[in-house]
């Protein structure tokens, strides 16, 4: 009941004109960015962050959050029409969406994607509304030791969860921690790794790092891997053709609800994110859905599973971000960086100290989700044009946006050079199949980690016992160890199984 009252109060904040405009434009930009092949929510939020610095924090985060979840809507357009997912969470959408489009049912596939995104997003937001305050209350039991272990768990789990090679994820985490230690140590006042450069005294700036690694690296990727397709490949779809029949809507609803629930749970986990949510949900539907034989060959249920899950995960990712200050993935890590720059400190106390902000954001997500649904349907003809924008045009335009976005943060050209270096580093990391998201997460979390670990030792007078002093600490420690050991054990079991199988074949 209290939640409903707070939600109502937040609705008043969300419905103020600047916040509505912010959500509206965020939703449109997210849709366009999502539809453009190769540009994801991470790049979109990173590139737009500098534009929001002069805004009120609530208005700014409402716009960026709208961009984030509307990006999930947009990603399905190019996946269905071109077989090129706009972003990684839409990869599974293409598996059924494109065959549907090839068989002349592009409109039905697009509608399924939009409706399922709405269902999934709504489920995620409802769960966030209910679980947010509970998680925040629970979070108040977290002292420096528990927070240290929680961050450690987040950093190690993202390393394992992203990429095929866990070591590669941990290399990225290590690089992120190393970059975060550059500059004056905030607790001890000691200068570290600044190489005498005034520009590095305050550390490696967040914006050049983010824009370089996720904006400029996309530009390099576009130049290297030219995405080519003929405009004739894209079918013309009208709004009328896109309308789903009652039977079709009835068919996708249970799928969207199931995968929406799973997507939210996956989204809440650190590091898993929308891509993992859509993969898991799609695989599950392929096993249990009534129409499972058709999934993968062009079934509306396949599109619904992937889209509901990725939108639900995008909403679910806000739960750990707002309540514990732990981002669930790359985009929420950028949002966390933004929140800190606006002077807000996400964590258990955020719900108490800034209820206007938190509930304004949650309420705006309900409104934003409806805006996304309406805009997505209304913009189907426009999106046909957006997906056709050639990467040749996007390369120089995004490049200058990267430069101007980086420069304007500190009015300093050094940041622009840093952004270019980070973009090249991200490209080489991609070549080496080292994921960049763990680096970003580690970079954002390291200053907090360092501060909490010192506080914990100050409290315990240097004793390690504080890290096993409470049940929360013990659980987190056990989870961290489990996550670190699981791939090793799994690899061993796999190896054993292979050797047993090969021995059986030989016999």
């Amino acid at each position, binding site marked *: 009941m209290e939640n409903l009252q707070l939600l109502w109060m937040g609705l008043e904040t969300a419905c103020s004109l600047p916040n509505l405009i912010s959500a509206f434009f965020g939703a449109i930009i997210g849709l366009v960015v999502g539809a453009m092949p190769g540009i994801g929510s991470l790049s979109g939020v990173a590139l737009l962050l500098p534009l929001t610095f002069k805004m009120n924090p609530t208005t700014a985060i409402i716009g960026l959050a709208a961009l984030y979840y509307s990006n999930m809507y947009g990603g399905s357009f190019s996946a269905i029409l071109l077989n090129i997912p706009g972003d990684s969470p839409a990869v599974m959408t293409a598996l059924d969406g494109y065959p549907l489009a090839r068989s002349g049912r592009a409109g039905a596939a697009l509608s399924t994607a939009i409706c399922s995104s709405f269902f999934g997003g709504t489920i995620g937001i409802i769960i966030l509304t209910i679980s947010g305050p509970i998680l925040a209350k629970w979070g108040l039991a977290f002292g420096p030791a528990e927070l240290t272990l929680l961050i450690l768990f987040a950093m190690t789990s993202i390393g394992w969860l992203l990429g095929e090679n866990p070591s590669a994820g*941990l*290399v990225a985490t290590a*690089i992120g921690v190393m970059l975060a230690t550059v500059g004056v140590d905030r607790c001890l006042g000691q200068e570290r790794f600044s190489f005498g450069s005034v520009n590095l005294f305050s550390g490696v700036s967040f914006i050049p790092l983010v824009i370089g690694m996720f904006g400029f690296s996309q530009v390099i990727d576009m130049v290297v891997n030219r995405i080519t397709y003929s405009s004739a490949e894209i079918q013309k779809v009208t709004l009328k053709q896109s309308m789903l029949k009652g039977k079709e809507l009835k068919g996708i609803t249970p799928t969207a609800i199931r995968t929406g629930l799973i997507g939210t749970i996956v989204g809440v986990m650190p590091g898993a994110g929308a891509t993992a949510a859509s993969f898991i949900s799609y695989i599950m539907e392929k096993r249990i859905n009534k129409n499972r034989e058709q999934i993968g060959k062009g079934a509306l249920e396949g599109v619904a599973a992937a889209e509901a899950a990725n939108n639900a995960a995008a909403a679910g990712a806000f739960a750990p971000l707002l309540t514990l200050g732990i981002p669930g993935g790359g985009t929420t890590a950028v949002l966390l960086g933004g929140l800190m720059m606006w002077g807000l400190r996400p964590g258990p106390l955020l719900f108490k100290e800034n209820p206007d902000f938190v509930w304004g954001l949650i309420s705006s997500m309900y409104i934003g989700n409806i805006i996304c649904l309406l805009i997505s349907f209304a913009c189907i003809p426009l999106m046909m044009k957006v997906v056709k924008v050639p990467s040749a045009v996007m390369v120089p335009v995004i490049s200058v946006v990267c430069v101007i976005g980086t420069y304007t943060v500190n009015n300093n050209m050094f940041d622009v050079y840093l952004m270019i270096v980070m973009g090249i*580093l991200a490209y080489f990391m991609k*070549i080496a199949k080292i994921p960049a998201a763990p680096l970003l997460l580690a970079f954002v979390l390291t200053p907090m980690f360092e501060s909490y670990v010192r506080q914990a030792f100050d409290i315990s007078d*240097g004793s390690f016992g504080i890290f096993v002093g409470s049940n929360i600490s013990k659980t987190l420690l056990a989870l961290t160890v489990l996550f670190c050991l699981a791939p090793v054990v799994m690899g061993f079991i796999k190896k054993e199984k292979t050797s047993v199988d090969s021995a059986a074949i030989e016999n």
Partner: protein
Amino acid sequence: MKKVVPILAIMTGLYWVIKGYAYGFWVRNGPGGGFLPIVAGLMAIVFSLAVLWKDRKEKTPSDFTWLAFLPAAALLGMVFFSYLVGILISMAVYIFLWLKLIEKRKLSSSLAISFGTVGVIYGLFVVWLKVPLPKGLLGLL
């Protein structure tokens, strides 16, 4: 080229460990300034070696192409040019030249895209956000 990042990470990790030791690993019953650099440096060394070990037998050619440096070189050219004519003009020139010379687009569309983009940037950053953009030597005139 696949080995560039792991090797760089090993070298940087080594430097971080050595410098971290000088900053102090454990100071007054708690982590010193060198605690995280040493831990991160060691992590970088160990896991980069693991990546290199895992890839030792992989024979698939790397996806690397020197073309990847073209956007960075072009941007650096644009930034250096901005010291002379200011950032807005250098951006317009950069977009135009990229579209005309590299993408071989029509003169009219190249001009329209370059002036359109710079116009939007001017409106957003100079008019709305009041950001003082560098005007280069031209601004001194």
